[in-house]
């Protein structure tokens, strides 16, 4: 393995991403968890940059770190978690399911990592830089993928209608 700038950046970002993810799920206060999630999103955006996906990286910062985290914070404040003890759970079926699902995810990830390191998917395409730009994305999105693009607008419409319906009690 080469020891260049990209390798150093990748490993420091990866360690930060894992560290912030662990901090996020172990914090007691939901607000602190949310702040660690922001750090996690930031490191993931750095990883996107290393993969030459500039447009996605900037969107990760703008939408996830900005807008979606604001939404998360409002949800936490809406929930009215006065007593943090409520969050403590006993050993239930839900926990057993969670453990089983985690093992499944772990297996899935280890398979991916194993095949990644066995030399099958290591090379990055020469066109990677070109593909990552907004220009390439636009020309693909508005020609080959115009139908999924229009479907995205229905998804956004459904999100607005869903939020208004859920909050409607307030207005009646």
């Amino acid at each position, binding site marked *: 393995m080469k020891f260049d*700038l990209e390798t150093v950046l990748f490993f420091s970002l990866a360690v930060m991403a894992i560290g912030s993810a662990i901090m996020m799920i172990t914090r007691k206060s939901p607000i602190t968890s949310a702040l660690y999630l922001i750090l996690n999103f930031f490191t993931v955006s750095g990883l996107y940059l290393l993969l030459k996906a500039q447009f996605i990286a900037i969107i990760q910062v703008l939408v996830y770190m900005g807008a979606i985290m*604001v939404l998360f914070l409002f949800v936490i404040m809406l929930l*009215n978690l006065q007593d943090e003890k409520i969050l403590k759970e006993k050993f239930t079926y839900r926990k057993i399911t969670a453990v089983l699902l985690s093992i499944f995810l772990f297996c899935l990830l280890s398979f991916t990592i194993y095949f990644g390191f066995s030399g099958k998917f290591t090379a990055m395409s020469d066109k990677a830089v070109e593909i990552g730009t*907004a220009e390439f994305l*636009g*020309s693909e999105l508005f*020609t080959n993928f115009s139908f999924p693009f229009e479907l995205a607008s229905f998804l956004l419409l459904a999100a607005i209608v869903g939020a208004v319906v859920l909050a409607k009690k307030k*207005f009646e």
Partner: protein
Amino acid sequence: MSTESLIVFFIAGVVMVGGGIIVSELVAPTSKNAVKDETYECGIPTKGESWVQFKVGYYLFAILFLIFDVETIFMVPWAVVMGELGLVAFIEILIFLIIVSLGLLYAWQKGALKWD
């Protein structure tokens, strides 16, 4: 501008902001005591919890903002390739905008934009 220079730009930003905070922490004179850490409330001793349930209106405004944020992001690649693709891209974005605007009209109609 290459990706590496963007990464260097990010790191320089972090170092400038973080360095400023660290240096001011090192240089500034400090005196710490328990009274300073208390929540300030007009000089009166505080009562009760600071956790209050927020109005659902905040959430509605946040999700409306998010949706139009995503809409704007879809418009960035559109704006870049508009010159090449011409009328087709224009009609596509028009359909997109009309569908998303229906959502805004719905929220408006239901009174979600009112703050009472």
